[in-house]
């Protein structure tokens, strides 16, 4: 009986409407936390696993020695490597390809690499517009590595403490 009376009063005084507007009003005056992407960016953890890169040594020599451990460990079979003997007798890749459609960004390849060559950078903002662009070739991977080496090195430095 009492419950019915309260309900009738609430509905005639538009109680719920005002309760809702109160919440709106509260947030209306609060500090905003919307990030204005792409002008603004959220901070990224050094552990973030984004686009891949192949690194070089400071003297410019590519790190990868074509051991194929990353290819073997990749659970998604996203990596394809062709190896050969380079003219100087060293073991190198002839081609190194990662299929971004297959990759699940697990980071196992980075874990497996004995020379810290293949790494996952913190880049996540890229798109694939055409068929074929999903294949990251050796040249592209090295270029990404060259461009972001500083960032990559800094992230590894930071992470190294927990390894």
């Amino acid at each position, binding site marked *: 009986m009492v419950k019915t009376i309260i309900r009738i009063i609430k509905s005639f005084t538009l109680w719920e409407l005002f309760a809702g507007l109160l919440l709106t009003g509260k947030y209306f005056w609060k500090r905003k936390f919307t990030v204005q992407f792409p002008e603004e960016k959220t901070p990224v953890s050094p552990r973030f696993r984004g686009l891949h890169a192949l690194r070089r040594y400071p003297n410019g020599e590519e790190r990868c*020695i074509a*051991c*194929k451990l990353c290819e*073997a460990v990749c659970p998604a079979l996203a990596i394809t490597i062709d*190896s050969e003997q380079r003219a100087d007798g060293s*073991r190198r890749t002839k081609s190194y390809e990662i299929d971004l459609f297959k990759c699940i960004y697990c980071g196992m390849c980075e874990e497996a690499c*004995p020379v810290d060559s293949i790494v996952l950078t913190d880049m996540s903002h890229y798109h694939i517009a055409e068929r074929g662009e999903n294949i990251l070739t050796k040249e592209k991977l090295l270029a990404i590595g060259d461009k972001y080496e500083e960032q990559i090195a800094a992230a590894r430095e930071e992470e190294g403490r927990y390894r």
Partner: protein
Amino acid sequence: MAKIEIDGKEVETLQGETIIQAADRIGAYIPRFCYHHKLSIAGNCRMCLVEVEKAPKALPACATPVAEGMKVFTKTAKAMEAQKAVMEFLLINHPLDCPICDQGGQCELQDLSMGFGADTSGFIEIKRAVPNPDLGPLIATDMTRCIHCTRCVRFEEEIAGQRELGAMFRGEHMEITTYVKHTVKSELSGNAIDVCPVGALTSKPFRFKARAWELTQTGSIAPHDCLGSNINLGTLRQELLRVTPRENEAINEIWLADRDRFSYVGVHSSERVLLPMIKKNGEWQKVSWQQAFEVALESLQKVLNKSGAESFGALVSPSATCEEHYLLQAFMRGIGSNNIDHRLRQQDFSDQQAAPLMPTLGVNINDIPLQNAILLIGSNIQKDQPIAGLKVRQATLKGTKVFAVNQLDYHFNFKVAEKLIVKPKQMVVALASIAKALSILTNQDHAAKTLFADVVVSAEAKAIAEQLCAAEKATILFGLQACNHSQAGLLRQLAALIAELSGKTLGFLSEGSNAQGAWLAGCVPHRRAGGQLLIKPGLNAAEMFQQQLAAYLLLGIEPELDCADSTQALTALKQAECVIALTAFVTDRMKEYATVILPIATFGETSGTFINITGEWQSFSGVVSPQGEARPAWKVLRVLGNVFQLEGFNYVASEEVLEQLRQIAATKVFSVKKNPLATFAIGPVDDNHLQRITEVPIYSIDSLVRQSEPLQVMQQNEKLTALRVNKHTAEKLHLKAKQMVTVKQVGSLTMPVEIDERVPAGCVLIMGGIKETVPLGAAQGLVEVLG
């Protein structure tokens, strides 16, 4: 017959066994490096230490003979501790960079260090480094990785029979190397790669190409000799990258000849034909299969209409598959020609009617080491059939006496007890004298006795006859040089006579990997498939070139290199109106004479069957698709049959062809016409002329090996284009070593003189099967040397 206990399990051991052998038999694993079940025991790595009850220290299982009541423990704390300690020492000087080592993933050290290695090392001193000897184009070395197990040294010495590797210096300075810098020449050298437990010896052509774990292994059959060694083909993403032996105790055990191991490189040769080609107005054009078949039909039909089917002949490689052999003969006979042959290097076909259904070894391959005496007739068994040579060597190590009747004094890797090295023309006399000695010895009143009245029995012949008779088990092996001799028929009859008189078995070694299949499938002019006799035989390989036919069909051969008479073959082919070549590789010479070139699949790309020398049918499948537009030869032949509207060419799988051949082989009655040894003439031995002896170098026997680059590099240093004479002949002709001379046979050629004591006096040795000597002509003939 002692009873011992291994890890609590009772084992009956065999006489003279060591612990590791008993353990292997019951599947109790003991880690090892230097022990290898096919090699002698060295006991130098100490990885196999096990605990034995009542022994104060751990004992090496590979070198400790079993004793009654012995109790062995392989996994106790004491054994494990010893094994771990050994592993620590092994890893001290071993580089820890498996990711760049080619053995990574198939390395015994890597595997065992997972089980017995520590994850840290107390060794902070500098590791040793060792220079890498250059062992040639087949074996890559990385000697810092060597763990001094000496398996390779023992392999070279015990199995290959060539002391080419050895351990130098001692202790930490020990190095495995060649004593004098040279490439390893053994025809079995590749097996050292397999026995080496680590990455010290690896395959050079395969170097850094792929990891063992990513290769797909498919069983197949080796394509270069009549033993049919079992192999595994390693493929990755539709590319054939490696050939390794597949264990088959009955044939090749665990070994493989280098020729079979490295010939696969030829598959990727730049001379592969990728598209059908036709010659139009003297120009070569790449065309579609459709067009190529049309041109083949048109040009061949023209010849057939004009000069009839008798002027059309087919020559096929003895290494083609049974299916190809069968279809080719069906095609030829469908068209109405019996001119078909696979005996390309043979010169004498006189006894072909008396030939058995197919040449066989007479004994099992594994029975060779059990013989007490072996007589080799015209055979360079070590180079021609390396695995059979290995068995003969195994036999000699057990005390078997080997005798050789040869035209060249081959330096075998086994001991030859008695040898008769004679000029080609005297091979017959040599065999006759052994036969005569046998008939005197056994007191048999053979009709042959009167025939051989003029033959003088030499001391060697007598010795061979005596020892052959005395041997409890003996076999006579008739080799390729005898088979390709200009009096081969007579030689075969004499060999049979020797076998009959001495009561021993006679076996034949045959050319290529499937001469047996060729005989059985009817790739001979006088017999149909299954061996049925033809009333009117066609032309044999030699006659086909002598009579200069109007049209030829070639399957998988380069006649100028693969046939007995190079110049005759070339002239015949050049004058022919139509030459259809089914081939995987095209050479410049082929472009000169061919009309249509149809690209066929080669090794690893086609399915098929080889019948080996003991009559074993071994089928295999293709593991990669043929390159370019090439197709398996059996398919090409099948379509060719359709194009000519022949009956019965409706097969959709090579198995159907095989099934048909099997049925024919099972049902058709085979009969031979034996003709007795009625005539026997010692040909006039012309002493004033130089007799040419031809050898086909081991890496020139067929088009696939000729295309394999590492194998060609192997024989580059052998000075193949040379006139080889012995010192005596050289003096008589006033020749000096290295002097350039002009040699005249059919054509003439300038080449250096090499002094070679293997060559009998009055003869010259000139290699065949190589491009350079093609202008000279027939394999056996008279030559003139102009200073």
